[in-house]
């Protein structure tokens, strides 16, 4: 950096000449973000219009906040919002700690080859698509799957179809998420655990601290910044709760049980052609998600943590 300290003094045209190759390199990427993010955001104006695809975005009539009231009067929307928050809460309480626990278990394995073997196994499901993961789950736990016929000893009798019974929606979502992503989720926790100074453990052990007290007084405080960081990222995701995952199961579990905000936007907007109403839902979701992240980050700073950004 020091070598370039004088660079900003260069006149702009001289910098332009110096950087012309770099700017050309940026061009495809800048065009991409310009078009597919910033230009696309302009499409949100249809939230204030009565958008008709044949007429186009520009010529559709302005209706002010009418689409907002229509959306707020739709019980299906509130249902999707409630479902989204419930699902997010289930994930936060029951999914978030699992990768941490698994990472601590992996870290406690003292035989290197065993640890490497387990790590390479548990990373794999993260790279499998949700379509396939749900396929695997149906094959194992579905009505004609392995577990069902082992439980009933009669393959044509079904105890409970855990992929159709609405009350099984949240447990199955959780189970699938744990299977697919908890291994991958350990990666950051493991890296943090490796950074903990071994001398701290040694000192604690010499003072007579057992496994539980070492975990509570050394491990967890040492990796707290990472836990906070991942919690903030999770907060930003609350309103999205794994769209890809829900998309595979919304229809079988019925929309009544499984609709979330993103699937509402897809099915009401793209499928049913109510683009304007769906745009309102998507816009509100984006704004609230952004506020949530900023707020979570602020709180982290207040608590003396680093957070995601400064």
């Amino acid at each position, binding site marked *: 950096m020091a070598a370039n300290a004088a660079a900003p003094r260069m006149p702009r045209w001289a910098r332009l000449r110096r*950087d012309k190759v770099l700017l050309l390199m940026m061009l495809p990427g800048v065009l991409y973000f310009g078009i597919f*993010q910033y230009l696309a955001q302009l499409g949100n104006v249809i939230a204030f219009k009565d958008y008709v695809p044949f007429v186009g975005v520009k010529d559709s009539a302005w209706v002010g906040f009418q689409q907002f009231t229509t959306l707020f009067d739709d019980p299906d929307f509130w249902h999707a919002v409630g479902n989204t928050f419930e699902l997010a809460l289930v994930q936060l309480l029951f999914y978030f700690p699992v990768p941490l626990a698994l990472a601590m278990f992996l870290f406690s394995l003292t035989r290197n080859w065993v640890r490497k073997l387990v790590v390479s196994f548990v990373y794999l499901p993260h790279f499998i698509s949700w*379509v*396939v993961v749900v396929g695997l789950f149906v094959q194992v736990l579905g009505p004609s799957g392995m577990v069902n016929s082992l439980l009933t000893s009669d393959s044509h009798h079904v105890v409970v179809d855990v992929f159709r019974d609405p009350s099984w929606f949240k447990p199955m979502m959780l189970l699938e998420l744990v299977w697919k992503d908890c291994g991958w989720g350990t990666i950051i926790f493991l890296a943090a655990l490796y950074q903990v100074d071994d001398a701290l453990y040694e000192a604690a052990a010499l003072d007579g601290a057992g496994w539980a007290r070492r975990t509570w007084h050394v491990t967890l405080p040492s990796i707290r910044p990472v836990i906070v960081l991942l919690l903030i990222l999770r907060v930003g995701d609350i309103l999205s709760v794994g769209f890809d995952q829900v998309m595979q199961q919304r229809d079988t579990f019925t929309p009544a049980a499984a609709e979330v905000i993103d699937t509402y936007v897809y099915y009401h*907007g793209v499928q049913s052609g109510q683009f304007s109403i769906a745009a309102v839902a998507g816009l509100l979701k984006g704004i609230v998600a952004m506020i949530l992240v900023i707020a979570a980050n602020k709180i982290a700073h207040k608590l003396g943590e680093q957070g995601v950004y400064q």
Partner: protein
Amino acid sequence: MSVEGTNLRPVWMGRPKPAVSAVKAVAVVVILALVAVPFWLVFATSVSSDAEVNANGGWSLWPDKLDFSAYTNVFKGGTIGHALWVSVLVTAIGTALSLASTTFLAYALSRPNVLAGKPILLAILFTFLFPAGMIPSFLVVTDLKLFDHLAALFVPAMINVFNLVIMRGFFQGIPEELYEAARLDGAGDIRTLFRIVLPLSKAIIAVVGLYYAVGYWNDYFRAMLYTNGGSLNPLSTVLRGFVIAGNNPNAEAGLDVTGIAPMKAISALVVIAIVPIAAAFPFLQRYFTKGVMTGAVKS
């Protein structure tokens, strides 16, 4: 990372109780089985005989005799073969395009004091906080006349901000002296990128490339959102129709379905969808821990 390479238990830890070791050993076996059994189950089902699969009600954990008919059956009728071709095409073109544009952008943004570098980076990071939603993205794809074109399956996902950030972080980790030396030798930006930076960045290129490839291979949704389906459906989207909507692949292949187990055909498709990822996995394994973590920590 001091303890990573060692096999030894630290002295202060003492020997664990046999009961603790036994519990851990059981836990290890259970974890391995939980991951492996579903994969094995679909593979075994896909190569078992129809009679065996039907007798069990739709699955088989141990093939009585190897029967690969499911793999030949699913390609009859052409739909699935074509979908596989679309997947390969989208993955190849998309990955090449994404990798090239991400590398160029990450490199330019990693150079200190590049003109407009700061505001451009901030503008890109902001899209992470407030990304374009589904409806606005759909509208822009339609306005660009990309709807129902093959390009709609990869162009709208060309650069991923996370991939960009880890790559930029990696480039920034390359010692400034190397750039300086290249400049003194008269190398321009392009030469520096290709002769100095890229050879040092094989790990991160491999990781980001594989991320993109896996992303394109697994994507089912862009075909649903940006196309009318049909001949533009990749394998994931077609597979989704079988797994989720319960369509019978054998029926769609125009076969007489009596006696043929639909789960066997679906299992074969699941295996086909997994194989490329499983094949790429060892490479991912080798690179991603070091490549990704150094990139993420630096940025």
